[in-house]
């Protein structure tokens, strides 16, 4: 049977197709692909293709060693762009003023913190400049606020600190707020001998030199420390809430919650309480049911959740839906009003430790709250209040120093006898950047932060 013969005797066919393909292929390229394709079909390329999709995908089209290479036409354009950016970077105003840097978390994990901090800073500066400015010796100068966004990231915080201190040459830096940022930034400030006041970083490490363990000279804070907070919470939960057993659930990959959890465990156990389970999760987790189920099986009286405002609501809701009835207690990381918006019924009735309460406000605090509300249409949270206080402290120090020398400002700041701030009176312990000040315990009731108790140091 001739056809069969023709089919089976593939030399004929190979010869034909490819010869044809080659002849055409070399003359007019258009045909090749078609012939090629049919060729491929015969050569059964599919698996071949799949097998090599990886290699082929990465195949370059040009000789990787060719030198006519460098794309000359694009280079000048590129350079131009870079230069433009550079110029855009350095448009600095130069009328006499007091430059104060604000290094805060405008983007990243906790934008609410950065926003409050920035709002309070602007409020303070506007008010002061409206009143003429800050009195430096004989003259009064306006404040020039330089804001840097540290993205709530350690490395960026350090870079921003460098920029503010060495590039913008601020007399002092306020912030960062989050401990994860404040700690690296404080190294920079200390090295550059420039005052840094962190409004909200409660972590003991912020003001301590990691190598010597001694307090840093130029790093201050406007808030209490986690050590104090832990004591307050331990006392409150043991005495007022009559809790005997406690569970802790915290983000082991973030600085502040980690320290707070550890310190709470330590003090709670020292004061006679019992930690029945100590569970962790990783930053970015949204599902805590596994840990909570574990906690539930140990049946604690209270659960300590030292987490930021955007994690707590999830924990609370999941805990409740697992049938956990234990009392939630939190740290100052709760303080953003966002927590009420997000948490709803689940966190109703929970307690947490905070820096100040809008309900027991002193006259100055009243005024601040009024102004803040007027300007931004919302209650100031503690970050805002603390930032405002940090600026207050700094300005008082500058006035006392009578000049803009960083060293002088630092000495004046350390010597401030007693400062009446929004968040209560504060005074720096001799040879330390940690102020002596009180804390408050708040409860979340009917969607509000309700004052429960004061805790004196």
């Amino acid at each position, binding site marked *: *049977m001739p056809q*069969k*013969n023709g*089919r*089976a*005797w*593939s*030399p004929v066919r*190979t*010869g034909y197709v*490819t*010869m044809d*393909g*080659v002849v055409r*292929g*070399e003359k007019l390229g258009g045909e090749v692909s078609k012939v090629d394709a049919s060729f491929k079909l*015969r*050569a*059964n*390329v599919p698996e*071949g293709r799949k097998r090599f999709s990886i290699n082929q995908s990465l*195949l*370059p*089209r*040009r*000789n*990787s*060693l060719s030198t006519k290479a460098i794309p000359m036409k694009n280079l000048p354009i590129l350079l131009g762009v870079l230069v433009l950016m550079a110029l855009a970077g350095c448009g600095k105003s130069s009328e006499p003023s007091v430059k104060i840097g604000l290094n805060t978390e405008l983007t990243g994990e906790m934008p609410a913190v950065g926003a409050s901090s920035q709002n309070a800073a602007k409020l303070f500066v506007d008010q002061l400049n409206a009143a003429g400015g800050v009195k430096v010796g004989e003259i009064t100068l306006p404040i020039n606020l330089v804001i840097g966004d540290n993205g709530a990231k350690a490395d960026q915080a350090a870079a921003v600190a460098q920029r503010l201190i060495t590039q913008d040459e601020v007399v002092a830096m306020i912030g960062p707020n989050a401990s994860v940022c404040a700690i690296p930034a404080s190294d920079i400030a200390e090295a550059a001998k420039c005052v840094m006041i962190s409004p909200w970083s409660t972590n003991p490490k912020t003001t301590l030199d990691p190598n010597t363990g001694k307090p840093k000279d130029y790093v201050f804070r406007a808030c209490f420390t986690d050590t104090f907070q832990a004591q307050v919470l331990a006392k409150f939960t043991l005495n007022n809430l009559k809790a005997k057993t406690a569970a802790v659930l915290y983000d082991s990959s973030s600085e502040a919650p980690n320290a707070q959890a550890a310190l709470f465990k330590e003090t709670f156990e020292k004061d006679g309480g019992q930690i029945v389970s100590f569970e962790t999760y990783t930053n970015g987790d949204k599902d805590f049911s596994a840990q909570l189920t574990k906690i539930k099986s140990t049946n604690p009286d209270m659960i300590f959740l030292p987490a930021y405002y955007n994690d707590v609501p999830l924990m609370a809701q999941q805990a409740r839906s697992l049938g956990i009835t234990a009392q939630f207690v939190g740290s100052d990381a709760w303080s953003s009003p966002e927590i009420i918006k997000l948490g709803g019924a689940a966190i109703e009735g929970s307690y947490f430790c905070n820096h100040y309460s809008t309900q027991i406000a002193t006259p100055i605090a009243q005024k601040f709250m009024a102004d803040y509300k007027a300007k931004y249409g919302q209650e100031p949270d503690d970050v805002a209040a603390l930032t405002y206080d940090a600026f207050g402290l700094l300005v008082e120090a500058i006035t006392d120093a009578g000049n803009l020398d960083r060293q002088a400002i630092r000495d004046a700041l350390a010597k401030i006898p007693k400062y009446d701030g929004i968040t209560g009176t504060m005074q720096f312990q001799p040879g330390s950047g940690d102020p002596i000040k009180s804390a408050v315990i708040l409860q979340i009731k009917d969607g509000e932060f309700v004052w429960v108790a004061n805790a004196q140091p």
Partner: protein
Amino acid sequence: MSALLEIDNVTKRFGGLCAISNCHVRVESGHTHGIIGPNGAGKTTLFNLITGIYKPTEGDIRFRSESIAGLRPGRIALKGIGRTFQNIRLLNNQSVLDNVRIAYDSQLHYSPVEAMLRLPRLGRDEKQSIGESLELLKPFGLADHAHGLASELPYGSQRKLEIARALALKPDLLLLDEPAAGMNTGETADLTEFLRWVKEHFKVTLVLIEHHMHLVMNLCDRITVLDFGQPIADGTPEEIRANPRVIAAYLGGTGDED
């Protein structure tokens, strides 16, 4: 004396289907050995078994009477078995020269450290390799295109480059998978002469899969005919021409077109 290459009762199964079954082939050193058979007879599979791309399911493959079955392809190549591929496998985005150099590199002995610090020995070796590679390209008429991309060569030259590249390994055994594919009668005749020259000049033993009966019959000292993965005949061209089973296998048709 034992043969250069002995394929001893080799079987290769892919899951169900049996591509090669109890295959015996002996390739005497200095011979030109042809392997023919209808499509899907398992010729290329046999090459892939020899070069270690597949591991034989059963049986043994001996090269210079030492077993190479199950060795990694790279190792086998270095033992002196060069090959070309049915659907050409050049490094398309490398220059023609580099394609040969990479094969030649196996004879350069400088160490990674010498390479990273670019010590003098590297310079000497590289100069030599470039020189010899260019030499090698000359008889293939590729020397002038040495710095063009391999993919830019015309089809025929690409096949030649593959042979040149295989020879840069300084192999004793050269496996050619359809070297004349896509060549017209004239080109095939040239190729026949060329392969003779290669065999003389490089002192290699040739094994080639080919469909062009003319070439096979002219060139080969021995021929093995595969059908359904089994050698159905083995002998000199004359014997093969005369062998009834071979004729049956071809004309009878296997119906198997892969």
